[in-house]
């Protein structure tokens, strides 16, 4: 039996501050479009079913699992991936904290962990351990045992608060 095939569509969105247009199937996963069409391979695929958080990115300011987003739903959206987090050669405070506190081992979960941490610190600039655990509950790591990751989050929170105190104004992280 011949299988029905549908056509591609043009979809425009903004990724890390740059407007991009892709020609692809509307049900294509945002994860695959980022990695294969746009070559933004910092966004990882782990489980492909919304459990592990390796594919996390921000869509319109909200942390999402890009494996569960059909690309047509990203039409017109503002997307921020791990590649957009650093400013030139200067790492984001959360990235630096993961280095300083040893929060990264094999690295597959790290982009998602970093972005989930950014999301957490926007909401809770001074998180307690329960808030850290809940904020990262959707991000699985099979290397670290999580303790160094929780340390990294606390380190990042301190660094961001210290920087904001030094600059004399408060406000959210990142």
């Amino acid at each position, binding site marked *: 039996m011949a*299988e*029905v*095939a*549908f056509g591609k569509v043009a979809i425009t969105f903004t990724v890390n501050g740059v407007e991009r247009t892709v020609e692809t*199937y*509307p*049900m*294509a*996963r945002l994860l695959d479009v980022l990695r294969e069409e746009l070559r933004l391979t910092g966004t990882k695929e782990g489980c*492909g*079913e*919304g*459990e592990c*958080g390796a594919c*996390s990115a921000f869509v319109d300011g*909200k*942390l*999402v*699992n890009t*494996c*569960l*987003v*059909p690309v*047509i*739903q990203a*039409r017109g959206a503002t997307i921020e991936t791990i590649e957009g987090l650093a400013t030139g050669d200067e790492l984001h405070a959360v990235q630096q904290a993961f280095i300083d506190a040893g929060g990264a081992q094999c690295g597959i979960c790290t982009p998602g962990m970093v972005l*989930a941490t950014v*999301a*957490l610190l926007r909401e809770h600039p001074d998180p307690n351990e329960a808030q850290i*655990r*809940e*904020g990262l*509950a*959707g*991000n699985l790591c099979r290397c670290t045992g999580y303790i160094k990751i929780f340390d990294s989050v606390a380190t990042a929170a301190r660094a961001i608060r210290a920087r904001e105190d030094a600059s004399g104004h408060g406000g959210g992280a990142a």
Partner: protein
Amino acid sequence: MRANVPQYDVVAPPTLAEALALMAREPGVWTPLAGGTDLMVLFEAGKLPPGRYLSIWGLPELAGIQVTADAVTLGALTTYGEIRANATVQADLPMLVRAARETGAIAIQNRGTIGGNIANASPAADSPPALVAYDAALTLISAAGTRTTAFRGFHTGYKRMDLRPGELVQSVRVLRRPAADGWVHFYKKVGTRAFQAISKVGFAGCAQVVDGVAREVRIGLASVAPTVLVAAHTEAALEGARVADPGLEARAAQAMVRDVTAIDDIRSTARYRSQVAANLAAAFVRALRERG
């Protein structure tokens, strides 16, 4: 096996009227797709039927939380994250916040919607027990207009519900239940872990305790029946009861055993589920007693 992407069409009409017109014009052809947290999992597993999907994500007519003096209305596309953040829901309908927190983690809560949780009709979902306990009213909309129906009884069997072709869930309305008026809210999810686990048993109970007597007792459960369960025998055993009655816990537990029709599956056994549901019914009685 992963799905073959070209076999799936998705359109995203800019307005609700256009989405409903398309569903009316081609009945049975278009499957609604909201935040994708259920359907995209099936898609990746190769279990989502190929065909045409209607993306309703972002339709403004289905979004947002409306609060009045006596009720809260959740648009179908209200996400779990939005439920968690709403101060009125936190204060007067705390089991909806608990259910939202129990559903996946932050990234899922930013995409999963209350309407999707209802229409996906999973017996293991976390919010339906709370909607049973709060005696929610659903508004359904099609090109022909809207109708309102009780959430209790909306699901008629495993993955079956009273949703007609061409209809979408538009909103869910619940009356506010402030603790100051004697309302008691008891929500408990029993699963393998604190986070990221689908329930073995989910329990939501709500009642108004005035002068030591329980009224308006409503109890919903997840994962103990082919669909979200209305625990009618247990509700009847508690309705009008004096909460100080020392025999009440045992009667509630016995009634609950009659209510559940649990099965053995990958997450638990019928025997365990039935026992836990009975224990939770007794725990609900103790919560009512603390209030009384």
